[in-house]
Structures are given as structure tokens and as C-alpha cells.
């Protein structure tokens, strides 16, 4: 299972990165590969290469704002949640994303 995700919160200093580590840990726990891009106050960091997006099974947007350059994800299965859901229960969010693709 290949997961890619984008996290972004309003101030872009805390929730963005906590959601990132939450998703990474949750994916690790179930043996899924994942790449999380953060769109915080520093702008885009750890940008996901387009070929990884194309190869991904599912996309998670853990965002409170609009995803920058969203057109890169055109046609992908996307689960969209708020960052705080990922901070509280990242495992649940990842499970829901995987359910989405069956």
C-alpha cells in the first residue's frame, strides 16, 4: 500500500508537522509506505515527486487550508480531513484512507 499525504494548518508551525509525524507513524505501524509533504509557514517542504503521486494508491489531505498546487493530485482517490483529526487519531485516518481504496 502506497500512501501520499499533504498536511497544512493555519499558522503552519505546529499542527502541520504533528499531523505529518502522526501519519508517518501510523503508516509505519501497518507496513504501508508513505510520503508526507508539508505546506506550512515555510512553504512546501518534502515535496512529493509527480511519479510518486501517480504510483500512490491513496492520497490523504490533512489540511485546514487549501492545498497548494492541488492539480498535481487530479484523478487520485483523496481522503480529506482536518489536521487535528490526524494529531488525535492518525491511525484511524490512515485506516479510513485505506478503506477508501478497498
Amino acid at each position, binding site marked *: 500500500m502506497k500512501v501520499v499525504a499533504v498536511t*497544512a*494548518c*493555519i*499558522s*503552519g*508551525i*505546529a*499542527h502541520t508537522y*504533528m499531523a505529518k509525524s502522526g501519519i508517518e507513524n501510523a503508516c509505519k505501524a501497518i507496513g504501508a509506505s508513505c510520503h508526507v509533504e508539508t505546506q506550512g*509557514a515555510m512553504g512546501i517542504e518534502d515535496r512529493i515527486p509527480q511519479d510518486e503521486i501517480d504510483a500512490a494508491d491513496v492520497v490523504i489531505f490533512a*489540511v*485546514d*487550508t*487549501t492545498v497548494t498546487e492541488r492539480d498535481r493530485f487530479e484523478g487520485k482517490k483523496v481522503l480529506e480531513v*482536518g*489536521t*487535528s483529526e490526524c*494529531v*488525535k487519531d492518525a491511525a484511524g485516518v490512515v485506516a479510513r484512507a485505506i478503506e477508501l481504496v478497498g
Partner: protein
Amino acid sequence: MNAKQLGKDIMRHFSTGVSYMVPVVVAGGIITSVATIIGGQGVWTETETFWGVMRMIGQTGLNFVVPMISAYVAYSIADRPGLAPGFITGLIAFTMGTGFLGGMVTGLCSGYLAKALKGINLPARVQSLKVMFIIPIVTTLCIGLLLWYVVGTPIAWLTTSLDAWLNSLQGAAAGAMGAILGAMMAFDMGGPVNKIANTFGNAAFVEGAYQSSTLVLMAISIPPTIVFLATLLDRKKKLYSDAERETSVTAMIMGLCGITEGTIPFALGDPLRVIPSIVVGTSLSCALAGIFGIVYPVLLTTYMAIPFANNIPVYLVCVAVGSLVGALMLNALRTLKLKKQEAAEATE
């Protein structure tokens, strides 16, 4: 699209606008604050002295807040085509005195109009004409005219009345305002509810409604103070684990720098007890500050603002009382939890 989804989308567009605006408020607000505090009120009208120049730099930043929010709300809706009309109409909104509210309205209108124009299918040979000319010109002109002739004046009136009302709040009314803002600031420690209150505080500061901005800003470092104080008061070290003690110190250090988010790791370990305690404590501090009319005309957080409060001893008492009540409440709740656990273990 149903109304609920639309509301959610609009909230997200506002959030995006705010996220781009925050550095502008911080840069402009803090530079202006420092300049007026050190240079005195004279700096507002001159650029002959160093502090006058510094005020000018900061104020230029603050004047940019409304165009900025308008542009990035529009950008969030329509992507790049939203930026130009958003900036231009936002600047008009600012000069008309419509404040934040006006900027949000012009951002929304510009964004949705630009998006709608983007969606119109034209023959391929005029398609590039659409992007180059039609979208920026039509959107800017339509929203500009709409603002000037229709919505601008009522919004400006609303903003002025709101500012006047906020500045006139005294005693119990100001206390109630403080209680609500403090509770919102503490509730999710930097999350969406906190940001609503924070944006309100920033807007109030930009408009010169310093009492409201004070009630928001002073709340920022109280949640970390509460958890730090709670671990300190637990002298026998029974209520908190070593890991919790460590996170409370980190939270306090971040709190001193004006970041509430440091409290989140601590709160996540026991949200049902931590969140109510910090909400009650912070709310109490801000309510007291409202009742006693604490005001500071600077964009600084709880501790950094101390020298600028109009009544420093009373301000410190307000902060201390709320923090202490929050900490004691947290320790009481944790003691109950501990007793429950002990009882459960005893019966096993």
C-alpha cells in the same frame, strides 16, 4: 453543492487567507508597537527620527493586511487568477475603511467571480485572451464597482460601529468578552477555534480596538503556564509521569515565546482533564482583565507585553489567578483519576 459544504469551503478559504496574512500582521504589528513605545506618540506623524521611520515601516505592513487577506482568500478560491483582482479590490476596501470584513468580502467575491470566468468555455483561439485579459479586467472592474457603489459603505459603517462598540465595552461586558475569547484561545491550543479568536484579536489590533486585542493576546501563554504550574504544584510527583513533566517544561518555554501549541503534546495525553482546566483558567484570566480594564496597545503575547500594560500589578494578578485556578483544577481532576485507579487496583 449544498449549503453545509459551501460553508465549509468558505471557512477553508478564510483560513488560507489568514495563514498568508499572519506574517504581515506580526511584522507590521510588532515593528509599529516597538516604535511607538520607544519613540512616543509623536512618531505617528513624522519620518525625521529613527523611530518615526520604524513606525512608517511597520505601519506600511499593517496597511497591507486587508489587501493581503482579500488577495489570498481569492487565491484560495480561484488559484492564480484570483490574486490580482483580490489585491486591487482589497486595497480599495482598505482605503474605504471597511477593515477586515471588507477584505474578506472582496476576496470572496473576486475569487468566486474569477473561478466562474475560468470555467467558461471559449473557442481555443480566444482561450489565451481569457486568461490574459478577460479574467483580470472583468473581475477587478466588477468587484471594484460593486464595492464602491453598493457594499463598501455599509461594510465601512458596520466596521466603524463594531470598533466603537468594542472600545466602549467596560466592566461585566468586557469581562464576558474576555471569558469567551480566553476559552476559545485555550480550547484547541492553536487549532481552528483558537485561530478564529486570534484572527479577531489581530483584526481588532489593526483597527485600534486595543482592549479586544489585549484579551486575545494575553491568553496565548496561559495554557502552557497552567500545565507547567500544575506539574510544579505536584510536589510529591505522584500525579504526573516524567514524560509529562518534560513536555510541560517544553510547553512553558514555547509559551514564553508566545506559542500556545506547545501545550498540545501534554494535552493529548489526557485531553478530558487538561482541556477543561486550561479553558477555565485562561477564560478566568481574560475575564478578570476585561473587568479591570487591562489594555496594552502592542501586538505582544502574555509575558512579553507585561511592561506595556496600563496597570502592570493588576495585569499580573489577572494572569496569576487564572493560571493558578487552572492548575489547581487540573491537579484536582488528576487526583480523582489517581484515586479511581487505586480503587480499581485494590478491588482486582
